[in-house]
């Protein structure tokens, strides 16, 4: 897919909590085709301590409204600056980068999308994409507390939503992998993004139940286009760039201890 460097305009910045912002961006030109799982390398202007671009998952695309959504979690100065951007400001980004999640061939496949923390971001667009293709979508979203479960009504537009919170303030108490959904259901395809221990636990379950499982990694990056070789992960084919061979990997390809 052809990559572009574009200046998108911020249409709206919805502050979802003190830690999260939803940036809704638009452009005077038609947005390029973007696949679920792909990401943007965003240049952060106006943060003196931020030098490199920041890789950010595509949260959602609305082609009719020509909108691209980014879910920003504040983890440092760069993301803090992004989370504080105002409507009308412009954001320079390289898109679309990386590979995408695989679409099952069989429309009756049982599909589960498991997200934790900010890792829920790419799953909204993936769920929307799958629903559009005629799949039944199940989301399992985990967070520390109710306040960290973001955008739930958006996920509900595209599928069944199950939740867990560590403090029990929403859904079942505990971690996503402890959800009762796993007791009485088997899934053919599991897609996951979130903290590594969570993804490894999901991968363990997938291997046990012989489900096909894809994970989205978020290694630190410099270039985002396969030139610098900084973001590598170890796979059955040796070190490969997460920015070009990923960010989505089938768990059978990764050299994870699971």
């Amino acid at each position, binding site marked *: 897919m052809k*990559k*572009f460097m574009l200046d998108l305009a911020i249409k709206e910045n919805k502050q979802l909590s003190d830690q999260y912002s939803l940036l809704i961006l638009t452009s005077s030109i038609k947005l390029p085709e973007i696949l679920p799982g792909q990401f943007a390398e965003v240049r952060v202007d106006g943060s003196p301590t931020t030098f490199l671009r920041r890789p950010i998952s595509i949260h959602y695309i609305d082609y009719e409204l020509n909108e691209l959504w980014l879910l920003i979690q504040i983890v440092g100065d760069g993301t803090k600056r992004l989370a504080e951007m105002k409507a009308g400001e412009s954001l320079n980004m390289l898109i679309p980068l990386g590979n995408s999640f695989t679409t099952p061939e069989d429309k009756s496949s049982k599909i589960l999308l498991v997200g934790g923390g900010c890792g829920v971001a790419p799953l909204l667009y993936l769920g929307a994409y799958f629903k559009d293709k005629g799949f039944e979508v199940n989301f399992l979203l985990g967070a520390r507390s109710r306040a960290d479960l973001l955008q739930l009504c958006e996920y509900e537009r595209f599928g069944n939503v199950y939740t867990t919170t560590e403090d029990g303030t929403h859904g079942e108490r505990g971690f996503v992998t402890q959800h009762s959904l796993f007791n009485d259901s088997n899934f053919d395809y599991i897609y996951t993004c979130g903290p590594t221990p969570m993804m490894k636990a999901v991968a363990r379950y997938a291997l046990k139940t012989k489900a096909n499982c894809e994970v989205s990694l978020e290694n630190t990056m410099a270039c985002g286009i396969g030139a610098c070789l900084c973001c590598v992960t170890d796979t059955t084919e040796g*070190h490969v760039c997460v920015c070009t061979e990923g960010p989505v990997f089938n768990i059978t390809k990764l050299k994870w201890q699971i």
Partner: protein
Amino acid sequence: MANLNINIGKLQLKNPVMTASGTFGYGTEYSDFMDISRIGGIFVKGTTVRERQGNAYPRMAETPSGMLNAVGLQNKGVDYFIHNIYPTVKDIDTNIIVNVSGSTIEDYVETAEKLNSLSKIPAIELNISCPNVKEGGMAFGTSCSSAAQVVRAVRRVYENELIVKLSPNVTDISEIALAVEAEGADSVSLINTLLGMAINAEKRKPILSTITGGLSGPAVKPIALRMVWQVAKAVKIPVIGLGGIMTATDALEFMLAGASAIQIGTANFIDPTVSIKVIDGINDYLDRHGFQSVVDIIGALEM
């Protein structure tokens, strides 16, 4: 429109702006964003005699106005380059220059000999300055005798333009430059990265898997500029300057200090089209100051 052509020994450049090894892949990674044939030259990823997996992740740390890397020369080896990469880059209408690294002198010689036979590779850049591999690399570039030894050996088998990339991690970089010039290097490029370190205080751990890594970006520019100025005064062969160049003004500073051409490295990660902007900016400067040719500003620093 000033004349931007410049020759580095036998190497003919359409302009003095090139992209640094390890920051521009094989060039084609950037072709969605611009016409890469506009660049004066592309230094492709460090190539070794055999495939290298490089160092473990994490290999990169962002630092104030720069970054540390510890990639460790990950590449598929010179034979893979010749059979799989060369056919895809040989017809790009610019100079494709291969950066060559090794753990032993024999490694350097074998790789250089193989590249010597490729008609569309007009030059190699001998990397005797990589700080990220335990065996060799920088070890060759930090003493005059070992730098001289490796250049002498490669010079015997390599007939085209031989550029030697120098390490800044030395007491006197001019001495090393003079040593490689004496052994037949056609030009020198400097600086490679500066050895540095980053720590995560919360975790009380180093950020890089290798603990130390190479610092690049605008943070190193004043050091690079000083070294280019020192080396350009010391040697007769052309000097290629690099180290933290982000803008045309940065590039011009290196040329005024004595560089005949420059390389852009880390800046490619921030703006993939930066090299085109630097070419246009140099041209604007020459027009604005009434210079007919870019050659007129090399070493034109007024004291």
